[in-house]
C-alpha cells in the first residue's frame, strides 16, 4: 500500500507541478482571477448592498445560494452524526452512580431503585471516581459569558469587520462545548436540552431558506432580499443589508446548534453520559 500510495502521490504531484508553470505569478494584480469577476464585487458592493465588508456581501448576497447550502451541509452533518451514533434505548441492567458533592462519597444505585431524594447534593457520575477540578470549573464559568458576548458581537458586526454568522455561531457553540468539557456533559445538557438543540438546528437553516422563500412570495427571485424592502420599510439597498443580517443570524443559530450536537454525539458515542 505504501508503494502504491507513494506512486500515486508522485504522479499527482508531477501533474500539479507541471500545470503550475502556466499560472500567473503569485499576487499578480493583472491575473484573470483579479480582473474578470472581482472588480465588480469590489467596486459595486457599497452601491448595491451597502455592506463595507465585501466578503460578507458576496457570501450572503451575490453568492447567498452557496451559503445556504453550506449551512445545509452543516445541518446534514449534525443529523447524520445523531442518526449514526445516538443510542436511544439502553440494553441490559443499568446501575447508576451518584456523588455526594460535599463529602465526595460515591453511592451506587441498582437498576429499578429510586434516585436519592434531594438531588441538589448529589450529582450523577459514570465511573467510581471522577476527579473534580474546582479551579478549571470556576474559571470556565467566568469566561463563558464573555465568550458568548464576543460571539454575538461577531455575528452582529459581520457587515463592518471580519466575522459573520458562521464564525460567531462556532464561537457560541464552542462556549457550550467548553462548559461540557470543564464541568460534565450533563451540566451542559441542562442548559441546552437535546430536543431544543435539534429544533434550533433546523430553525437556523429554516430562517435562511425561509427568508429566501419570503422573497419568492413577494414576486422576486429566490434570495433577492430587495423584496424585503416593503415589509422592513426601507429602500431596496438597505433591505439587502438587513436581509444579510437576518440570514447571518440564521447561520449563527444553525452552526451553534450543530457544533454542540456533533460534539455531544461524538464525545459520548451517543450515550449522552458525562462525556469527556
Amino acid at each position, binding site marked *: 500500500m505504501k508503494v502504491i500510495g507513494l506512486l500515486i502521490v508522485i504522479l499527482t504531484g508531477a501533474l500539479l507541478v507541471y500545470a503550475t508553470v502556466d499560472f500567473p505569478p503569485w499576487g499578480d494584480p493583472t491575473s484573470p482571477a483579479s480582473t474578470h469577476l472581482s472588480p465588480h464585487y469590489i467596486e459595486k458592493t457599497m452601491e448595491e448592498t451597502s455592506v463595507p465588508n465585501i466578503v460578507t456581501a458576496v457570501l450572503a448576497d451575490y453568492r447567498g445560494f452557496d451559503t445556504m447550502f453550506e449551512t445545509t451541509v452543516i445541518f446534514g452533518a449534525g443529523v447524520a452524526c445523531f442518526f*449514526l451514533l445516538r443510542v436511544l434505548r439502553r440494553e441490559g441492567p443499568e446501575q447508576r452512580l451518584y456523588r455526594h458533592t460535599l463529602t465526595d462519597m460515591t453511592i451506587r444505585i441498582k437498576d429499578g431503585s429510586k434516585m436519592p431524594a434531594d438531588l441538589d447534593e448529589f450529582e450523577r457520575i459514570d465511573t467510581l471516581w471522577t476527579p473534580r477540578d474546582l479551579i478549571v470549573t470556576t474559571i470556565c464559568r467566568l469566561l463563558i459569558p464573555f465568550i458568548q458576548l464576543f460571539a454575538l458581537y461577531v455575528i452582529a458586526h459581520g457587515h463592518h469587520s471580519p466575522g459573520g454568522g458562521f464564525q460567531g455561531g462556532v464561537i457560541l457553540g464552542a462556549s457550550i462545548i467548553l462548559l461540557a468539557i470543564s464541568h460534565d456533559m450533563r451540566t451542559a445538557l441542562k442548559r441546552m436540552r437535546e430536543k431544543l438543540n435539534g429544533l434550533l438546528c433546523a430553525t437556523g437553516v429554516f430562517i435562511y431558506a425561509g427568508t429566501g422563500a419570503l422573497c419568492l412570495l413577494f414576486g422576486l427571485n429566490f434570495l433577492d432580499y430587495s423584496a424585503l424592502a416593503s415589509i422592513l420599510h426601507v429602500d431596496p439597498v438597505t433591505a439587502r443589508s438587513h436581509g444579510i443580517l437576518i440570514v447571518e443570524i440564521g447561520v449563527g443559530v444553525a452552526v451553534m446548534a450543530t457544533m454542540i450536537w456533533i460534539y455531544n454525539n461524538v464525545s459520548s458515542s451517543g450515550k449522552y453520559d458525562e462525556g469527556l
Partner: protein
Amino acid sequence: MSEQYPALLVIVPLISAFLISAAGWVNRRLCFPIAVAALSVTAYTSVGLLMRVLDEGVIIYRLGGWPPPWGIAYYVDHLNGLVLTVVAVVALLNLIASQKSIAQEFPEKTGPFYTLYVLMVTGLLGIVVTGDAFNLYVLLEIASLTGYGLIAMGEERAPLATLNYVYMGTIGACFYLLGVGYLYIVTGSLNMVDIAGILPALYQSKAVLAAFIICMVGLWLKMALFPLHAWLPNAYTFAPSAASSLIAPLMTKVMVYVMIRLILTVFTPKFAFASLAVKDPIVWLAVIAIVMGAIFALAERNLKKMLTYIIIAEVGYMVGGAWLGNRAAMTGAILHIVNDALMTLCVFLVVGNIVYKVKGYAFEDLKGLFRKMPFTMGAFVIGALSIIGVPPTCGFFSKWYLISGAIQAGHYGFMVALLFSSLVNVVLFFRVFEISYYEPFSDHHGHEHHSQPIAEAPLSMLVPLMIVAAGLVLVGIYTGDIVNQIIQFAIPEALT
C-alpha cells in the same frame, strides 16, 4: 408561478427537510407524509420544467436576482430537464416503496432518516440543475454527506465500508474542487457558460489540461469507474435497503451526468475530443471497467453484491459512450443514464422486498421465491431482461445506440466488451432465476425468528415496483420519442 419552478425544485425538498427534522422531535408519524408531499411537488415541478424546456428552450433562473457571471444561475436545458425528471421520479417511487422497510429497520430514527433522504434528493437535484461550477461542489458534498449517513446505518460492516467511502469520496470531491480552482485561476470565472466562453483562447494552456484531468479523475472516483471502484461494492451492499435503492440508481448516474455536462458545456466537445489525445485511452479504460465488472459479478454468490458489480460495468458503458465522441454514442450514454437509473431502481427494490420478507440476500435465501413472491420476482425478471438488453425493454435501445456509436467510431473493442457483458449478464441472471424457480424453498439456514411463512411483499412496496417495471417497458417503447424530442437537442450541433 411557473417561472419560479427552478427555485422551487430545490427549495421545496430543502424546507421540507427542516420540517421533517422538527417533526421527528414532535410527532414522528408526520415525517413520512411531509416527505411524500415534498417529493411529489418536486416531481411535478421537474416534469413541468421539462415541458417548458421542450416548448421554450433553455431556462435561466437568477438566484438572488444577480446576473449570471456575478451571481449564481440555474440553467435548465434538454439534458438536465430529462435527468431532473428521472431523479425526482426515482426518489419519489423509492420513498413510497421503502416506507415499510424504514419502519422495520429504524423504528426510532425515522425522523433523521427521512431528513437525510430528502436532503440527499435536494443535493442530487441541485447538482443537476446548477450552472455554477462551485455551487455544484457544495451540492455534491450535501449529496455525499447525507449519503454517508444513510449508508452507515446498515449492517454490521457498514460503518467501515462507509468510512472507506468517506475517504474516497472526499478525495473525489476535493479533486473536483481543485479542478474548478485551476479553471478559476486561468479564466477568473465560476459560471459554466462564462468559462466555456473564455476557454477557447486557452486550449493550449497546461493549467486547463490539468484542470480537465483532475476534474475527470475526481468524478471517476465518485462514480466508481473501474480502477477507482473499490469503495462501491461494500458500501452499497451493506447499506440499508431503503438507502441502497436510492443511492445505487442515482449517485453514480448523476456523476455521469456531471461528466457529460463538463464535456459538452464547459470544455466543449472540440477540446475534449479533438484537441486532446485522451479519447481512446479513456474508452479502453471503460472497456476494462465493463469486462472487470462482469467478471467480478460472476464471482459473487450474493445477489446484492452481484448487482453492485453490475453497476460498475454499467458505469463503464456510460463513460465509454460519452467518450467515443460521436452523436450516436453520446445519445446512447444519455439514454442509458435514464434507463440505468430505472433498471437499477427496479432490481434494488426487488432486493428490498426480499430483504423485508426473507431477511437475507445471499443466493441460498432466494430458493423457491418465485412461488412465494410471484409479483416481486416477475418485476425482477423484467429488470433483469432490461439489464441484459432484450428488445421490448429499454435496456436494449441504449445498448443499440452505444453499439452503433462504437461501430461508427470504429472502436470494436468497446463493441465486443458490450456484447461480452450482455452475455455475462445472461449467465448471471439465469443463475438467479434457476435458484429461485427450481430449487425448493428451504428454511434451515437459521431464520427461525420469523414464524409466519414468507408471502408476497405488502402492497405499498409492490405498487411502486410494478410502476417501475411497467416504466422499463414504456421507456423502451417510447425510446424514439425521447431521443427525437429531448436528447437530440441536448447534444450540441458540433458533435456529429
